[in-house]
């Protein structure tokens, strides 16, 4: 089996990483494994990022021959990102999703966030659930021709929507 990094040498190492709840296995040759280890040990994150990224985008084709990916919001290009290791704006995560996903996996071993959330997001989430609940109740009320209850729920929904617009 060929090394999944350089696609040149025979893979002799198996790297197992957790993706969410699933175990994913990557096969690497000795050179690529050593390169990864060395970069991590020397704290050389920039070159680590570049090496991962160029491996993902394909070593065999020169960068200029590939179509350039550009972030629609901040106009940062994929090659700028490869060079600096820094993204231009939050929207770059979506623009470079295809290249970033394996890179994040390489760096962190997982690609599903498991930590804290912003409070505002939680509140908005809660309000969305509440709206869905109320809509379902309203539909049920209409189905049994309880129009008084349906009207009351409709007012509640209006109030929630207004609050969300304010926020």
């Amino acid at each position: 089996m060929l090394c999944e990094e350089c696609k040149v040498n025979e893979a002799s190492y198996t790297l197992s990483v957790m993706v969410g709840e699933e175990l994913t296995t990557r096969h690497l040759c000795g050179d690529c494994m050593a390169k990864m280890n060395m970069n991590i040990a020397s704290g050389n994150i920039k070159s680590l990022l570049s090496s991962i990224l160029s491996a993902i985008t394909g070593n065999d084709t020169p960068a200029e021959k590939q179509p350039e990916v550009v972030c629609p919001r901040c106009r940062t290009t994929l090659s700028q990102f490869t060079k600096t290791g820094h993204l231009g704006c939050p929207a770059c995560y979506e623009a470079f999703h295809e290249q970033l996903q394996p890179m994040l996996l390489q760096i962190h071993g997982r690609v599903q966030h498991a930590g804290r959330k912003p409070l505002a997001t939680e509140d908005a989430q809660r309000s969305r659930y509440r709206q869905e609940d109320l809509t379902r109740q309203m539909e049920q009320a209409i189905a049994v021709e309880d129009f008084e209850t349906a009207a009351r729920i409709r007012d509640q929904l209006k109030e929630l929507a207004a609050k969300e617009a304010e926020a």
Partner: protein
Amino acid sequence: MSNPIVLSSRVRLARNYQDIPFDVAHKPDAAAMCIARTSNALRLSGQDSGFELLRLIDMDDVQRRALAECRLISKDLLRDPATAAVLLNEAEGLSIMMNEEDHLRIQAIRSGMALQEAAEACFRMDDALSRQVSFAYDEQLGYLTACPTNTGTGMRASLLIHLPMLTILKQMGNVGQIVAKVGLTIRGVYGEGSEALGNLYLVSNQVTLGRTEQELISAVTAVGHQLTDMELALREKSLQNGRNALEDSIYRAWGIMQYARCMGQNEFFKHWSGVRLGAAMGMLPVKLATLDAMLEQVQEANLQALMESTVTGRALDEKRAECIRAMLKD
């Protein structure tokens, strides 16, 4: 509380605004928006008591570097003083750096082994701010940061740790392997390249995505305890096997620190390490807290701030020796 091995615990969270580009170095409008929005959010949250807004452009170079030496701001914040600022609560060891690599770096420092406390202080501030503003956040990837190495929790938890015996007995290679196995990293704090002046190291989490903040804090804390046990065991052993040699080196360092009239920074680190080791082992009559404070106060910019001058060279080294003597007398 002073700890024989762990000097301090630091936690920082990276946060960004959804609608502003990450790098605001050459975008004064975006940088100003970042500062104004954060300051307003802090004021509206009602958590602003004790905080002071410091724009780096309004400070002189010595003041800025002195703050960095005390680790209240990062060295990276000094890179572009025109746009950088910090909301600082010095008494609480809490800072919100603005326009560093990320828009916000919320940081808390506590002395000794206290990562949990430092993390909770950061979380309280994060919650208070996130009630007022929206941070760039993705359900799959968590908090979005300028560099993919911080994506997810955006959290770096680190311990400043003094490992003289492990260093002298050339065990740091092994330590590096142990630490790397659990997804953490260890590096020297002061000095260039591989040297670790003062035998001082930072242990921190390398991975930020896919683990909860609590898991990361537990991992760093566990390694901190493990390194503490290893270092203490070696100290104990060297007392049994070569008491005279160890005592000799500690008392020599103590003598020089008490009486020298001129001391360069590198020489200071060397003797400081010996004295702290002696103090932690109960040989020397000096408080660990004094030595930990000295570490910051006799660095270049802090001394220059004291002298109200930008002198370097011999005059600075003489001032350093004078400061050390004064602190050891108290």
